């Protein structure tokens, strides 16, 4: 079963479907498990209204008049809006679904679908969104903490992470062992690291984030 507690309570299911009745019926189904639903008739309407800070997931029909589901997904990707997209596909749209998944869609479900299956997938998408937001928040906090270090503290941190003892660090930076000791304590405190292995993990993560940015 899906861990409902992981989905943020404010998370909303955004439904985009040009078929008004289908959109309304999806709302009726999804609201039955007490999830907030917002429906849109076109991809454009959604893009105009949605703000990336809003947690949730997007349920899209691949076949739509005007901007197609695939095109909308492209735009989300360009804007780096990470909201998970759950595609609804019809008969003969398998190729489209494959394209969507390759382009980074979260999941797809084929019409006609089982309601439990659909609701499970929505829960999973919401959980993924919550998870993503949490790691994003963690990453930002980590970067902020690194930024709060002074130049000297950063140097000390990198050498500590490289596994050098205080004495060698002191020699390399032309400081006294006592000063290195102080810097090292400040680094651990500012980074909120409980142990050296903690600090190593943070430093690696930070390096990874910087290289992907």
């Amino acid at each position, binding site marked *: 079963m899906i861990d409902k507690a992981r989905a943020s309570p404010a998370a909303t299911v955004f439904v985009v479907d040009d*078929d008004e*009745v*289908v959109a309304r*019926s999806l709302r*009726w189904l999804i609201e*039955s498990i007490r999830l907030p639903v917002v429906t849109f008739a076109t991809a454009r309407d959604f893009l105009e209204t949605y703000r990336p800070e809003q947690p949730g997931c997007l349920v899209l029909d691949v076949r739509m008049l005007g901007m197609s589901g695939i095109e909308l997904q492209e735009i989300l990707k360009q804007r780096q809006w990470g909201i998970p997209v759950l595609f609804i596909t*019809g008969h*003969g749209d398998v190729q489209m679904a494959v394209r969507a998944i390759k382009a980074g869609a979260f999941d797809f479900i084929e*019409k006609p*679908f089982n309601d439990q299956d659909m609701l499970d997938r929505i829960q999973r998408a919401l959980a993924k969104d919550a998870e993503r937001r949490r790691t994003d928040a963690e990453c930002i906090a980590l970067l902020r903490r690194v930024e709060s270090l002074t130049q000297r503290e950063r140097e000390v941190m990198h050498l500590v992470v490289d596994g050098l003892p205080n004495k060698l660090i002191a020699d390399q930076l032309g400081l006294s062992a006592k000063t290195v000791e102080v810097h090292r304590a400040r680094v651990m405190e500012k980074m909120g690291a409980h142990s050296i292995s903690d600090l190593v993990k943070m430093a690696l993560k930070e390096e990874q984030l910087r290289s992907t940015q």
Partner: protein
Amino acid sequence: MIVIWFWGVLGLLLVLLFVALAVVRKRDTRHAEFLALLAKLKESENRLRAIIEAEPECVKLLDAEGRIIEINPAGLALVDACCPEDVLGQSIYDTVAPEHIENYKEQVHRVFSGESVAFEYRVLTLGGREAWHQSHACPLRDANGKIIAYLSVTRDVTVHKQAEDQAQRHQTELARVARMSAIGEMATGIAHELNQPLAAIANFAKGSVRRLQAGNLTHEETHSVLHDIGTQAERAGEVLRHIRDFARKRNSLPRLVHMNALIASAVRLTEHEIRQHGVTIALDLNDSLPAINADPIMVEQMLCNLIRNAVEAMTQAGSTQRRIVIRTHPSDAGGIEVEVSDSGPGMSEEVAQQVFDQFFSTKPEGMGMGLSISRSIIETYGGRLWLETAPGCGASFHFRIPAAQSLKAVA
């Protein structure tokens, strides 16, 4: 032809040479002259030989049994022979593919009967290669006009033949793909049209079950959701009806019918919708129309479709004046012309250009098959369906159908 002529002349010259020799023997006085003539003839033969040897296409002589009497270097290359000894005296049929031997024999026979022929055949060369050859052949006659050999000029047409085959295969494949994709597209379109109402019904029903289980489904909600389910079931039924109409087109039963009668019956069939949406309908029917040869049910369906479209266009646009006019008159070409006009919003040029396309619809629940089917119905009867419209000026569908061939019209 030049070759035959050349060989003819050569034969003639040879005869002349013998005559000349005989004369020389008798008349020594003219010996020198004849020697000169002989040299000239020899030179002439050499020149002819050189030309044939240098000829880029295969030149050969066959006897009546198909044995090779003579062949030039180009001919040797054509069958992958190294030297004349490989083929001289051999039967040409040794290289002809089995399925073409009979025809080849027939052509040789015809040439020996005095005809000129041209034909193509498949060969298996001495080198084991497969090729297509094309031969032009004619009889070679001696000085007395007796046919002494089959003379042919042959070229390799393998590349040309392959290109032809490929073009043919390509054409067949294209036709198949076009058929398949039309069917596939239609199946996908139908599936989508059916899936929409079915998905909605399932969502409404399952959502209701969950609400019932949680004990929070009000009486009003129940009423409204059941209404939605019913409407969507009807919508699915409508899609199926469209498909049935479409399928019916395949079993048409044309007979002599009067257009005015069909219009009257189409109006009767759509009367309910016309009245329900406050539309008035005016008929301006010419009563000296010739009969047409058509399936009355199909034409009626097409007319109903045009009327329904007009009603829907005016209703959707909220037109205050809702009027349909159906007019008939004889067309210039001796057929009939029908016009179905409405006082609706009309269409932009862009929309007008697409209305006859399959799966194009301006209606939210439209399948986009109606006008495309209507057009193919009219075209089945050798007629034409077109649209005259402009934004704000209503839409006017016109079609023409030729008169039935028989002059006798049904009552």
